[in-house]
């Protein structure tokens, strides 16, 4: 038998002459890296635990609601679902989404600054503004998993339970879809930009998460105290600083529900559109300040 003989070719360095995607490719890569980073992909298993635990907390109740509703419909076909609808579900997962944003926003921005990776971005066809918008886009994309996936599961699940045929019921309930998407956008815009702003000006991830949760949760308690202290002049305007409540108020507006008096902005006598304006203003100012920060450091 003759021995097989191989030849080793030293190809050396091979020039690349294929397509180049330029700025569009760089932005797409930054969005994709951001999504992977906050979900813990391409990293050790421990980085995946918290994001997927929170995602499960956001999605599994929807699966359970549809399942229990299915069981209930077998015993009492005409009974109303005891779990509420789409609007109530946004309230249910609000804290989970807030916690996720508190963890994800620092993860998106701080390591790149801390480990000098910004100098790599600066040498590629990517502007500082592109970087900020790409990271914001990555956060919105992952947030949509939290805010939209369970809602769509409920939309399809409840349609399957109640309708004559699934397709007919999906069409009959199609009016829910714009409300779901709009409300999800409101929550994402209310929660994400302030978190990015804090992360852009903070050196440590844990500090950024802590400050964000303090502003959103503890700050609300302070606001409630000021609003109720009627001796202070203009006290009711303090309610506008209750950032965590604005999306709930706008959600009620979108779903045509009368606002509950539990909401401080409602107690202070503001109309829901004021909350919508506040969300847009805070988001806009936050993102502009983040862009300003990165124009200086990239």
């Amino acid at each position, binding site marked *: 038998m003759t021995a097989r003989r191989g030849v080793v070719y030293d190809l050396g360095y*091979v020039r*690349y002459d294929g397509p180049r995607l*330029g700025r569009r490719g*760089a932005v797409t890569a930054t969005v994709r890296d951001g999504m992977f980073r906050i979900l813990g992909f391409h990293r*050790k298993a421990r980085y995946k635990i918290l994001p997927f635990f929170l995602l499960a907390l956001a999605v599994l109740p929807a699966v359970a609601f549809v399942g229990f509703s299915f069981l209930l419909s077998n015993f009492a076909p005409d009974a109303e679902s005891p779990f509420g609808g789409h609007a109530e579900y946004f309230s249910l997962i609000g804290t989970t989404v807030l916690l996720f944003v508190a963890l994800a926003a620092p993860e998106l921005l701080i390591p*790149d600054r801390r480990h000098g990776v910004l100098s790599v*971005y600066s040498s*590629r066809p990517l502007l500082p503004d592109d970087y900020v918008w790409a990271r914001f886009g990555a956060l919105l994309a992952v947030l949509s998993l939290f805010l939209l996936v369970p809602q769509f599961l409920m939309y399809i699940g409840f349609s399957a339970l109640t309708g004559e045929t699934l397709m007919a019921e999906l069409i009959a309930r199609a009016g829910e879809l714009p409300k779901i998407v709009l409300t999800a956008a409101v929550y994402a815009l209310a929660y994400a930009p302030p978190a990015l702003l804090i992360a852009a000006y903070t050196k440590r991830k844990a500090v950024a998460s802590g400050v964000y949760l303090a502003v959103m949760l503890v700050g609300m308690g302070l606001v409630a105290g000021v609003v109720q202290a009627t001796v202070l002049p203009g006290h009711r305007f303090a309610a506008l600083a209750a950032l965590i409540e604005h999306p709930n108020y706008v959600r009620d507006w979108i779903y045509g529900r009368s606002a509950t008096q539990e909401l401080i902005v409602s107690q202070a006598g503001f109309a829901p559109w004021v909350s919508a304006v506040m969300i847009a203003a805070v988001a806009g100012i936050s993102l502009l300040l983040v862009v300003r920060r990165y124009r200086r450091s990239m």
Partner: protein
Amino acid sequence: MDRPAIETRGLSHAYGSVVALHDVDLQIPPGRVGLVGANGAGKTTLIRILLGMLTPTRGTAEVFGLDTRAYELEVRARVGYMPEGNCLPPDQTAADFLIYAAALGGLPSRAARQRASDVLTLVGLEEERFRPLGGFSTGMKQRTKLAQAIVHDPELVFLDEPTAGLDPEGREEMLELISRLGSFGIDVLVSSHVLGDIERTCDWVVMLEGGRVLRSGPLASLVDVDTVEVDLIDDPEPLIAVLVAAGAAVERSGTRLLVTADGKDPFLLVRDALADTGTGIRSMGPRSTSLEDVFLAVEGSR
């Protein structure tokens, strides 16, 4: 000179009251170019302006004929950059980071993966590609930084102090890699304060000091002033007298003479003078002027 790869006109930059670059006029050809100067000479500032990362206070800078302010994205699509400081995320593997760096350079996903693998092999990290970068040694980190600078196959790569912090072995490997880049068709601008590194890797040198250009030209033209070094057994004076009479310049240090001759071959002059005087020698040989000599001489004459 061919069309310059880099050209600056009246380029100045100041950080507040600190002037980092002052009226820099340069025409740098394609090839391997060394940017030498002490810390704070303005090397990194010049590179950052050429990358479009800094807006100069005054003047213009062009790379491949493109103004770096007006066409920063076009310039960046054609260049690579290895920063002096850290630029590696410690929790990512070398392979993942290189794929990302290639994609940031505009390469499609499949090409980015292929290029990342090829370039990691090129810099000798193929065995380490699935290890997190945080566990890399300084030498491995420097090679990864070089790999990210060339993974998208740029036409020109800026290397800022590529041998900083490396042990002798790592430094040799890095200099070898830099020397090879030219043969790959990649132009290189290497910034360093180690003159020996520039002498070994570059064929054009730009000397910066205090934000000003001291010299800019081919390495050969800067270091080609040949000197003959002779170590004598006998009294040097008769030999010196003959050499000076023949038009040579002689520098004496004990029994050692350094002989240079403008427009003449100093070897021939020394040979003839030795024959005339019958002076005995211990040794005789060339002593090329190093880049360090040039740097010190130019700096001293200012």
